[in-house]
């Protein structure tokens, strides 16, 4: 049985209470909105991308602790990364939170770093969409779409 502590790790709770890069970005050249229609989570991701590199990333919006912490930690991880690295990170993150990767990678070992704390989400299938909402929104922004939805 999955324990609550597996899901609500200290780091996650801390980010949900004090989200990083939680602001609008006037200089953004990519931007997308993400919704989870079932629970009403709603975020906007702002990006400043140049030469295939994410020079700046920020977000705004509201939602549950998991979705907000995920957006916050994603924004920390992706600053100065290339869009290809961002895609790669999403793919790793996705396999960890959906439980495809059975063993969460050791901290930092394969570049997932702090995001490994989201491994506990896999034990709570109804919360996977919360963890991935910001990432789907990021992908939509990178692809030039304006809206992402988890449904």
């Amino acid at each position: 049985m999955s324990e609550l502590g597996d899901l609500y790790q200290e780091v996650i709770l801390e980010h949900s209470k004090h989200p990083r890069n939680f602001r609008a970005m006037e200089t953004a050249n990519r931007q997308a909105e993400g919704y989870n229609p079932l629970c009403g989570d709603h975020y906007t991701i702002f990006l400043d991308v140049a030469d295939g590199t994410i020079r700046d990333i920020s977000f705004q919006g509201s939602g549950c602790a998991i979705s907000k912490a995920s957006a916050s930690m994603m924004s920390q991880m992706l600053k100065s990364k290339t869009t290809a690295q961002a895609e790669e990170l999403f793919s790793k993150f996705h396999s960890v939170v959906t439980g495809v990767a059975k063993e969460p990678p050791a901290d930092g070992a394969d570049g997932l770093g702090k995001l490994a704390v989201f491994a506990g989400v896999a034990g709570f299938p109804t919360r996977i969409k919360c963890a991935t909402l910001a990432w789907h929104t990021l992908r939509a922004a990178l692809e030039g779409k304006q809206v992402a939805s988890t449904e």
Partner: protein
Amino acid sequence: MSIVANAVRGERVSTAPFDVWKVRADFPILSRQVHDRPLVYLDNAATTQKPQAVIDAISYYYAFENANIHRGVHLLSQSATDAYEAARGTIQHFLNAEESSEIVFVRGATEAINLGAQTYGREHVGAGDEIVITAMEHHSNIVPWQMLCEEKGAHLRIAPINDDGELLLDEFESLLHSKTKLVAIAHISNALGTVNPIARIVEMAHARNIPVLVDGAQAVPHVSVDVRALDCDFYAFSGHKIYGPTGVGVLYGKRKFLDAMPPYQGGGDMIRSVTFEKTLYNQLPYKFEAGTPDIAGVIGLGAAIEYVLKIGLDAIAAHEHDLLVYGTAALNTVPGLRLIGTAKEKAGVLSFVMEDIHPHDIGTVLDQQGIAIRTGHHCAQPLMQRFGIPATARASLAMYNTTAELDALLSGIHKLKEVFA
């Protein structure tokens, strides 16, 4: 707060004393555990659990009576037809409808409302006409009317509510005029628990010759409904919210309306005679029941309503009212918790939000303690917008809930505050 049944009660009430533990013993699922904790099921506005009597009625039908209805001359077909029609009689009695042919079986309240929109609505609503609903409707009593309005060039008018979640009756009445072709309104709000004064609303609408369709999905398990006392023209409800199976529901309609309405769907059973040139439609209620219906579901619904009548809606309403008062007082002790929906006339819904804790997180933490509640917009997004919130956490009550379960909810909420401290 008090629960007011807008109806006259007669012989349809049991006099046996209410014993919640005896009731609980009738529901097998209530003895199971989730996450190694006893199940505390507080998501009854989404769907209710089923008593053994309903499970048995469905099993018995499939084991001993299964056949298609209204067709064969053989014995099984006759006994299936008898059981199906007996359920119709039970529901006629339950709603105090004048005749059983005013009871139309559908898939649920949603289909019942769509039937009303697609038949009565399409015949009577034209360009520039108006349909009046309220700000507290479920999507199922918004979208079918929006679709109709779009098709016809008609307009949907929304009667506003106050901060307690009560309909503003004066404002509602001011929306009624010669262009208004229909009022469609929830008897009880799924997200707030507000009990609307249906008899008064029907009176206002009828004074202007406007018919009224009532969405009773949340009302039938909680208050005694008498469609003749209410004088409503249509009344819709779902089986699964009143301890019956999913996939079956009822549209009650006054004969004068149903008779004049075109069929909803074409097919078998709804016809009197068919040639390639012309089809004559069957009489009520079969005109609206094309195709083989959910026979087992209807029989299960009949069993559910017999079960409810045996316990008695007055006793159920009184018990649930006690729970509501107890639960409201308990939740009001929690700092940072705000109840959404504080109408004076209210039935068993405790919808709430908490400072700095999102409803989705509330739901997960409670679930880990075996407590099932609903979180989200409750298929009432415009209502959430009215209160300026994306979602709520909602505990909703049924006859089998206990004060001990509400204590568990309260301690679950305290645990929540620990996690998110």
